[in-house]
């Protein structure tokens, strides 16, 4: 684990450098941010949407953050607790955070361990409706040992104990302000939800839900010279393209977030010379899920149901053949997909776990280059022969794929390209798109959810928050298979079941050493990839743009993009 944290020095260096250049708080005037999806509240606990998390991150802060490389940095804490420095107990059942001295809330009162405890109580109160309770799972208690020490105890050993109060999902709110807003009352504390008092570089002056937020520099911010801007306007509304235009072409805005725009448009806009497109890669991978169960509608209730053992009773007619799965992957030219739909915001990926870099495997790079000949050879060898219509078949089974995804123009383009590519190896594809709210809606009554998986192939992006892949990788264990009995809750969409993989997962949950965890995660990834349980396509990044007059932007995919806004300056 040491390895991650060796970069602390770099961080401090950067911070001091920046503060050297600009010596005065508020000397750079106004900063204009454009989030085309406007925040609806400033209390991330009650929303959980990325836009709200981003907006609130400039006001309320966690104990530790991730930097743009995925390294953990102590933020309100003195240091990152580890087993080595005694912050984490040997049995991995507790963690003790030391809070920096002298941190003040923007109202001038002192930030104490009680606030941290309160934050925990607030979010875990069953009636609050907090969106981030999952970051507190496994915690049995949070205690303030003294005003600057917080101890978190877990029910079971937690090899990776850094989920609560780390990253922008679980920032700390002021007890004095939110007292009385726990539980059912949380809904009605509009003033608190819109104007939270924080420790961050800015404080909220005016909040108009779904429209605009006006911030001012926090007078009690711990670094007297920061932030460089006295005022910040956080504007919402519109669409991504025009947001990009406002930064890159007209220069009206300094920063625009989440520019899911066709790459050539961004390139063209960037030529105007007013701004720069920046991107950062987290763990998001656009991938094809392969259905190992038979989705034939004739099966009625048993459609896409895993039926025990090797699933031979309900195996997919052709996707259960390894050669077919591999051929499908080989036939895809991923670079085209990147160029057409993602540009800067995409990279070819052959792994479901491409990041943080330390976890990225290189064992599956076969997929980086398209190899139609090899794919055809594989299929021929496996006995899938082209019929008169050019579609391969064996024993009366045609390779005809129903390929579903959510409705989204880039996804539909990707679908179209892949359909063309598969045509070259004699595979017929029917495309289907389902509106995102239904597809991802998890409604057990709907046949179109991604969990029901009533198709042969489905495509979406999955990701995990933070930097630790343990829970993410555990999603493909046998018990995670969505099926009738668990009302289709579960992450193992392919219905891929491998006891060896399950064993690795259990092992990882008991391993604390980073080196070993990396090894385990990589081999789990390779296991999935080499059996083609899913076919990774693109490692997706976040794209934003900032004005060329702004410096200090360090695009971050592991935490808020505005994580270091205190360091932003105008040239």
């Amino acid at each position, binding site marked *: 684990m040491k390895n991650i944290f060796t970069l602390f020095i770099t961080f401090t260096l950067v911070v001091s450098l920046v503060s050297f250049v600009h010596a005065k708080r508020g000397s750079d005037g106004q900063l204009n941010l454009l989030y085309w999806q406007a925040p609806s509240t400033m209390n991330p606990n009650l929303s959980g949407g990325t836009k709200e998390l981003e907006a609130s991150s400039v006001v309320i802060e966690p104990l530790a953050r991730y930097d743009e490389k995925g390294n953990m940095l102590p933020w309100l804490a003195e240091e990152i607790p580890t087993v080595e420095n005694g912050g984490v107990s040997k049995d991995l059942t507790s963690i003790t955070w030391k809070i920096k001295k002298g941190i003040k809330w923007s109202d001038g009162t002192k930030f104490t361990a009680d606030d941290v405890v309160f934050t925990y109580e607030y979010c875990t109160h069953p009636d609050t409706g907090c969106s981030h309770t999952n970051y507190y799972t496994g915690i049995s208690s949070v205690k303030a040992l003294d005003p600057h020490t917080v101890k978190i105890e877990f029910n079971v050993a937690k090899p990776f104990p850094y989920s609560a109060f780390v990253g922008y999902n679980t920032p700390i709110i002021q007890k004095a302000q939110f007292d009385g807003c726990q539980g059912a009352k949380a809904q009605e504390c509009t003033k608190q939800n819109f104007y939270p008092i924080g420790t961050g570089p800015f404080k909220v002056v005016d909040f108009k839900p779904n429209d605009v937020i006006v911030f001012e520099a926090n007078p009690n911010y711990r670094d007297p010279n920061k932030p460089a801007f006295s005022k910040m306007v956080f504007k919402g509304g519109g669409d991504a*393209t025009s947001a990009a235009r406002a930064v890159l072409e007209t220069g009206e805005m300094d920063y625009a977030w989440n520019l899911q*725009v*066709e790459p*050539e*448009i961004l390139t*063209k*806009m960037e030529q105007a010379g007013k701004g720069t497109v920046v991107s950062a890669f987290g763990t998001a991978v656009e991938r094809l899920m392969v259905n190992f169960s038979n989705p034939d509608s004739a099966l009625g209730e048993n459609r896409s149901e895993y039926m025990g053992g090797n699933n031979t009773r309900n195996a997919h007619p052709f996707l259960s053949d390894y050669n077919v799965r591999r051929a499908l992957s080989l036939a895809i030219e991923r670079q*085209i997909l990147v*160029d*057409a739909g993602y540009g800067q915001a995409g990279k070819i990926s052959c792994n479901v776990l491409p990041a943080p870099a330390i976890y990225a495997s290189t064992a599956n790079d076969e997929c980086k280059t398209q190899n139609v000949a090899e794919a055809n050879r594989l299929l021929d060898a496996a006995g899938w022969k082209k019929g008169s219509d050019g579609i391969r078949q064996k024993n009366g089974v045609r390779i005809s794929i129903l390929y579903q995804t959510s*409705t*989204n*123009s880039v996804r*539909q*383009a990707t*679908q*179209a*390209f892949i359909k*063309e590519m598969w045509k070259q190896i004699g595979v017929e594809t029917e*495309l*289907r*798109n*389902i*509106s995102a*709210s*239904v597809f991802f809606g998890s409604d057990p009554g*709907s*046949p*179109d959810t991604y969990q029901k998986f009533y198709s042969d192939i489905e495509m979406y992006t999955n990701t995990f928050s933070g930097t630790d892949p343990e829970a993410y990788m555990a999603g493909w264990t046998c018990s995670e298979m969505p099926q009738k009995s668990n009302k289709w809750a579960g992450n193992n969409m392919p219905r891929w079941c491998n006891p060896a993989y399950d064993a690795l997962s259990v092992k990882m949950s008991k391993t604390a050493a980073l080196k070993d965890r990396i090894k385990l995660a990589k081999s789990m990834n390779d296991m999935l990839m080499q059996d083609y349980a899913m076919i990774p396509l693109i490692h997706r990044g976040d794209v934003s743009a900032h004005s060329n007059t702004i410096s200090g932007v360090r695009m971050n995919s592991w935490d808020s993009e505005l994580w270091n806004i205190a360091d932003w300056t105008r040239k």
Partner: protein
Amino acid sequence: MTDIAKFEELSQEAVSKHRSLWGDVWIQFRKHKGALTGVFVFSFITLAVFIGPYIHDIDPSAINFKKRNLGPTLSHPLGTDNIGHDTLAQMLAGGQVSLAVGFLAMMIALILGTMIGILAGFIKSLDGPLMRLTDLFLALPILPLLLVIILLFRDTLRTLYGPEAGIFMLIVFVIGITSWMHTARIVRSDVLGIKEREFVTAAYSIGTRKSRIIFRHILPNILSPIMVSATLGIANAIITESALSFLGLGFPPDFPTWGRLLYDGANFIQITPSRVIWPGLFIALTVLSVNYIGDGLRDALDPRLRGR
């Protein structure tokens, strides 16, 4: 009758000798240059859209990654889009859908509106309830409900009839069901007027059945406002469909309509302007020509301008 009215009538007589009434309307209609141009443009667009694909036979859904964002070339007269669709082929395919949406939605609105208008105007006891219903529909905020209805039924219909037919039916239905009210009102007031005309009393006096009175005497005489409503209905439906596409609630992205193409192309206005110009131009031209046709029809059917 004043003298002048008499002259106007006389002047009409010469025109209309030995011609049927619609022939007469046509004569009048021909005078309206805008309307005539409208008919020409509209027929041209309709023909182009339905015959065009046989001449320009590129599959609109075919993609060619190597030929993306092209300007006009010989094989792609309107260029290609960012994933290599042929813009002309998409325009033609999209036009078929847009026109079909416009036409069918108009038909629904028209049939509904005419039916309700006739019933309300003709049967006194139904007048109150039906007009309240019309008021109610007028008072319902249409766009929000439209959005909600689409969200609501999109997936049911999609599973029943497939993604394209399902959403097509839904959009046609939704536009139709939310735009019949004006037709109903106009038809009702016309029916109320016609009902008092002596030829209807005459029909009663010879013992004509009510259903025949409606179909033989009333319906043919309210055709003119219905025709005008029809043209406006087509225009309205095409615009509404494009607005729905703009709000992301129209057809799925891989299903071209002019509205959808315009919406998708909008972002590319500076790279491939043809993706914006053509759909925009064709929506505008269609709506414009249809509106002009409506205008011409209104003039041609205006009882003040021609003898009845």
